[in-house]
């Protein structure tokens, strides 16, 4: 009798989770329950990092500091140019009378606390959650491109489904030709571009960027680079393999994009993030 109840309940849960959005909050509760266990599980790794990184050479740190300062200066200079360009485009648009707008996103900096690189699931856990106004379906990027989207949140953490997860799909377009397609995860460190007809002009090395269709991912962010194209007999579409441009399993700091807002609140989060770094242990980067 117990087995029949468990069996029925499991089937009902699976159907509800697969076809409805009702299970989101229930999964959030389970995620909050398992969160302390996940923290316990990362303790040995953190202890190992603590004992190994404490012996880092001071000279290496000085060099790195110098490099980061130079990089920051260059980025600030580019940012000034970008602001000018933005104003210029707005002026030109108003002259032309078009309704176009440059979308800017509100950014939040988050730290990757742990990640799963398993054939069943590929996700990251971030140290920002509901208390930091992180909500489901927000896009997560690193310095190179799109990493994935927020799928679950707890008060203090959130989980990001990576673009390489077998359950993940993202609408993209080939930057060079504008050809649209759907990029799906394979469960390993590559993705598969679907629905590209044989007559298409895609080439190895083409950059895929988000097309913005569906409204979940903002348009124009780099996603992956085509690394392999196969033309199989009776199939009307090409088999296109692409490698993500983002460092999915090496990035330590990531950005969470919110819906379009008229200004960037980057600096506020940067200060907060730098303060966090003073107390947090860095994640091991490969």
């Amino acid at each position: 009798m117990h087995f029949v109840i468990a069996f029925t309940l499991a089937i009902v849960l699976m159907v509800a989770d697969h076809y409805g959005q009702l299970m989101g909050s229930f999964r959030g509760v389970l995620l909050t329950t398992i969160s302390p266990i996940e923290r316990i599980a990362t303790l040995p790794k953190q202890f190992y990092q603590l004992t190994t990184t404490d012996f880092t050479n001071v000279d290496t740190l000085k060099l790195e500091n110098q490099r980061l300062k130079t990089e920051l200066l260059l980025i600030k200079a580019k940012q000034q140019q970008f602001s000018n360009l933005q104003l210029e485009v707005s002026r030109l648009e108003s002259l032309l009378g078009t309704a176009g707008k440059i979308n800017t996103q509100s950014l939040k900096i988050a730290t990757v606390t742990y990640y799963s690189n398993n054939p069943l699931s590929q996700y990251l856990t971030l140290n920002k959650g509901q208390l930091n106004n992180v909500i489901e379906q927000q896009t997560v990027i690193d310095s190179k491109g799109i990493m994935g989207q927020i799928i679950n949140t707890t008060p203090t953490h959130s989980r990001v489904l990576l673009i390489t997860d077998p359950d993940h799909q993202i609408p993209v377009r080939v930057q060079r030709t504008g050809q649209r397609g759907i990029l799906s995860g394979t469960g390993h460190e590559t993705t598969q571009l679907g629905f590209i007809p044989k007559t298409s002009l895609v080439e190895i090395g083409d950059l895929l960027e988000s097309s913005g269709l569906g409204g979940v991912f903002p348009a124009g962010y780099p996603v992956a680079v085509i690394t392999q194209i196969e033309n199989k007999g009776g199939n009307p579409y090409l088999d296109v393999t692409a490698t993500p441009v983002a460092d999915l399993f090496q990035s330590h700091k990531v950005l969470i994009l919110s819906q379009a807002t008229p200004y960037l609140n980057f600096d506020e989060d940067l200060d907060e993030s730098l303060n966090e770094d003073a107390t947090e242990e860095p994640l091991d980067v490969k």
Partner: protein
Amino acid sequence: MSNKLFSLKTSQARWVILISYIIALAFDTIALFGHSSPVIPPLTLFFLLYWCANFLDRTHLFSAFLLGLLADTLYQTTLGSHALLFSMITFLMIRHRLRFKGYPVWQQAFLISLYMMSYQLLNYLFFSPVLNGNEIVQYWTMPALSILLWPVLAYSLGKISHTAADD
């Protein structure tokens, strides 16, 4: 000793069982975040089968269901899928646990490998994991590794549960 073994009640070792499940989940999490190969068996299911075979006053199906839900959360799979798998494997154990308990440990280990093979098979049918190169061999070798792991686990958990029951 054998009489004592057969008369153990879940209530006598409730805390030991609970803590063992937390430790098992932590080990599974370490294996997941440490990107270990698929050859390592799921310790949560291992512990569940041990307690199910040795504490006969409960069906342990509630624990199986709950642990399955936590596994679904951990592996980011459809809610209820691991719960169903764990419940099915536990049910198989319940059907034969009286005979299973009477077997010597080495024989139990071989039977456990059959349970683990059933788990891997169902896991493969449910989730169709994308396995490349060596991973295919490692995935199907997991039941064989369970043969080696079971005697160690049975001895350790046996000692701990009897100490807890004596206290």
